[in-house]
């Protein structure tokens, strides 16, 4: 066996390759030490004779670099799943997180030696002795993992194949598209279980008869309007909605899961509910969510809306006692000045590209210059622990001062 460094080929010692497996006379070991001018007393008594395994196999063993989360997952005995089609970059998912997998190539020889002991674990004194250790594999690659954003955009397009518009409509032509159960998403979407569940929640998908569906917007309007009407009749806006009493009249009209889902989506979070009502099943409609909904209803199907008029119409739509406010609709619409008149129009962040570069391009196509306050609602969902909104702006936008206000525009010179 010989040792070769790129610029330094070295003659090998013929004799060694003839030595049969796992036999290495101590005399030979000692003789070599002598030639190497190494003193026995300076060494720990144990010499480990390294052999290639008779079943040396470089194809079935792989190394994967772990971060602390992955290490914990493995130590807890949980499974990991690699997801991806041949034409996609593979991702590795734990229950919670998604990682990009990259194969790193190295010129070093990595020898996998299960039995090798390190110096710290060896006795310092005693008679010289020897052990045999096998090299199971010689590797020149390992897998590098990098935590990434889940590739969740597929979820939306899948769900949009077949919106739910009520029991009666299920049979008609418009509702024959594909429907999906949770397991189906695991097969199609490159994200972890937790991330897929979060994605479904964010898209306000509802589980109806075992399938995950998006409610058709008009249908959702009907459900929500019925709920609000009941609230106004029974004075539940303040006191909270008792689930059983709310279901009674509505269950004739809508599936129970749809009513519960709508209550979940448009109420304050469960935790807040629990605190105020000590566990009783009551829902409190969330003012911000309801106001946002009515803004969407008003703007969704209209073109540019006179801003002042919109503010009036919007306030009139929402249930009595609720107050509309601009922060409720950030990331949903833009306000422009056209010929001295302020107009508002529907521009939801959900419909913009998910890739960071594409997102910025779309934004700068829509509007050449943005203030920081204007653009943040449209990019904050792209921020990660490592790259915050500021870093995104630095990388993908160019800042300039205009009338004393910092504005952001595209980094691309030709547009």
């Amino acid at each position, binding site marked *: *066996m*010989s*040792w*070769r*460094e*790129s610029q330094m080929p*070295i*003659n*090998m*010692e013929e004799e*060694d*390759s003839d*030595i049969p497996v796992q036999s*290495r006379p101590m005399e030979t070991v000692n003789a*070599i*030490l002598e*030639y*190497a001018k*190494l003193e026995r007393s300076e*060494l*720990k008594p*144990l*010499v*480990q*004779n*390294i*052999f*290639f*395994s008779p*079943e*040396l196999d470089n*194809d079935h*063993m792989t*190394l*994967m*670099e*772990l*971060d602390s989360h992955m290490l914990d997952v*493995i*130590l807890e005995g949980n*499974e*990991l799943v*690699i*997801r*991806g089609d041949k034409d*996609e970059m593979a991702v590795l998912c734990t229950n919670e997180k998604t990682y990009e997998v990259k194969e790193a190539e190295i*010129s*070093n*020889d*990595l*020898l996998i*030696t*299960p039995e*090798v002991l*390190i*110096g710290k674990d*060896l006795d310092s004194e005693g008679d010289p002795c020897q052990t045999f250790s096998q090299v199971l594999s*010689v590797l020149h690659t*390992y897998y590098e993992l990098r935590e990434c954003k889940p590739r969740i955009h597929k979820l939306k397009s899948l769900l949009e194949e077949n919106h739910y518009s009520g029991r009666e409509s299920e049979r008609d032509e418009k509702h024959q598209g594909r429907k999906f159960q949770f397991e189906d998403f695991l*097969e199609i979407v490159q994200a972890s279980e937790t991330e897929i569940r979060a994605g479904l929640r964010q898209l306000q998908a509802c589980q109806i008869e075992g399938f995950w569906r998006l409610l058709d917007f008009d249908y959702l309007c009907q459900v929500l309007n019925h709920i609000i009407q009941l609230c106004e009749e029974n004075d539940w806006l303040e006191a909270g909605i008792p689930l059983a009493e709310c279901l009674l009249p509505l269950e004739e009209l809508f599936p129970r899961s749809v009513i519960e889902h709508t209550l979940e989506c448009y109420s304050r979070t469960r935790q807040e509910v629990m605190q105020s009502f000590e566990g009783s099943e009551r829902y409190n409609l969330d003012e911000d969510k309801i106001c946002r909904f009515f803004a969407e209803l008003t703007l969704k199907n209209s073109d540019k809306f006179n801003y002042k008029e919109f503010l009036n119409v919007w306030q009139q739509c929402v249930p009595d006692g609720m107050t509309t406010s601009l922060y409720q609709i950030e990331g949903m619409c833009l306000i422009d000045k056209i010929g001295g008149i302020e107009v508002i129009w529907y521009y939801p962040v959900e419909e913009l590209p998910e890739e960071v570069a594409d997102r910025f391009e779309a934004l700068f196509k829509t509007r050449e210059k943005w203030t920081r306050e204007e653009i943040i609602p449209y990019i904050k969902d792209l921020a990660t622990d490592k790259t915050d909104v500021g870093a995104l702006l630095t990388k993908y936008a160019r800042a300039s001062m205009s009338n004393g206000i910092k504005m952001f525009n595209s980094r691309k010179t030709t547009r």
Partner: protein
Amino acid sequence: MVQTVISVAGASADCPEWVLIDLQGSLETRHPVPLSGRFVGDLHFTQKDVPILIIGHHILYGKTVHLEKPFAVLVKKERSADTSMETDQNVSGTSYHVKALIRRKLLFKTRPKPIISNVPKKL
């Protein structure tokens, strides 16, 4: 989409810990013979725990490195043809098993020193 499962042994808290030997260079024989079963070299540790690897006529001094990011050793398992008939088509034929963890390696990155022996006797 293909899902490939990486399973972890039942009692993974006792997942064995292996050691990696990292050689800056590569091992080869003069003639293209399979490496299987062949002798690599003698690994010694000094009293100060410096690893010394003697390969052929060369002596390498290394150091023990604690890996900032540990490695998992994965073993690929190809499912045999008869069992794959029953399984889900979307689960790929291969799966991986976490065999061991590697938190320490012996890194030999210095240029090997030749053992100068003007000794006529063969070793």
